[in-house]
């Protein structure tokens, strides 16, 4: 993957020299051409095409923004509720992710989902402790949320 990025940058630089204009936009055009070349020649280059992974990262970012917007709307609804009749609490969520990096992303994503806030990670990195505004409501839905997040994160990091 690193090799492919280096090749891509070299192609972009070559494009700059060939067209004899040394601006950022020429570099960008060269970079896009490089992506196209790598896409056409992907059978002859070691490792899988690196834009696949970039697309997965972009998907993860879109998921992030979607959840962020939903949770904002949810919290605004709670703020203007005349009666505070929810049941908050802390529960433990087991996770399959191992490395620090993955768990950081998962905890951040959980913090931004509606009604949940990650409070701590257990010593052996196997559980994330989550504060939920309305426990009965959250415990039902948390499992599918967790699965979609874990899947998206694993696709990027592994």
């Amino acid at each position, binding site marked *: 993957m690193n090799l492919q990025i280096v090749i891509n940058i070299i192609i972009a630089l070559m494009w700059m020299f060939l067209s004899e204009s040394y601006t950022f936009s020429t570099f960008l055009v060269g970079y896009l051409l490089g992506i196209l070349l790598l896409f056409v020649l992907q059978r002859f280059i070691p490792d899988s095409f690196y834009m696949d992974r970039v697309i997965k990262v972009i998907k993860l970012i879109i998921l*992030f*923004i979607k959840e*962020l*917007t939903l*949770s*904002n709307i*949810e*919290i*605004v609804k*709670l*703020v*203007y509720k005349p009666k*505070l009749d929810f*049941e*908050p*609490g*802390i*529960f*433990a969520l087991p996770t399959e992710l191992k490395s620090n990096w993955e768990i950081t992303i998962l*905890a*951040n994503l959980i*913090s*931004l989902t509606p*009604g949940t*806030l*990650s*409070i*701590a990670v*257990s*010593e052996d990195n196997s*559980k994330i*402790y989550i*504060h939920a*505004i309305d*426990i009965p409501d959250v415990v039902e839905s948390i499992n599918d949320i967790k699965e979609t997040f874990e899947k998206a994160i694993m696709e990027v990091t592994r």
Partner: protein
Amino acid sequence: MSGTWINLLIDIIISLSLLTGTFFIFSASIGMLRFPDIYIRLHAVTKGSTLGIAGIMIGAFLFLYVEHGIVSGKLILGMIFVMVTSPISGHMISRAGYHNGVKLWDKSVRDDYAEAVKEKRKSIDN
């Protein structure tokens, strides 16, 4: 004639994004005052402020671009950094609060973290 229409539309979009941004930040501060304990207040602050700031930044970015022709990368960067850092700060503040013994709200129904903290305290004492 078509030019004025587009200008009006862009003005409306800019004002809408600025207004939604201020609305979300205003709601976050009201939540800060209304909610009963530190953890629920953090919910309001970490979430409400991100979309609020994003809205204001997008409004400012569009305004600068349309009125003055400036593409301001700083505003976009600021938006991204707020989005990335606010959940982390929420996590750290709530964790620090818990370890300093801030109590949950009276109506809280569950606390799984208390056992983990207790076990950890025991292992340190021994």
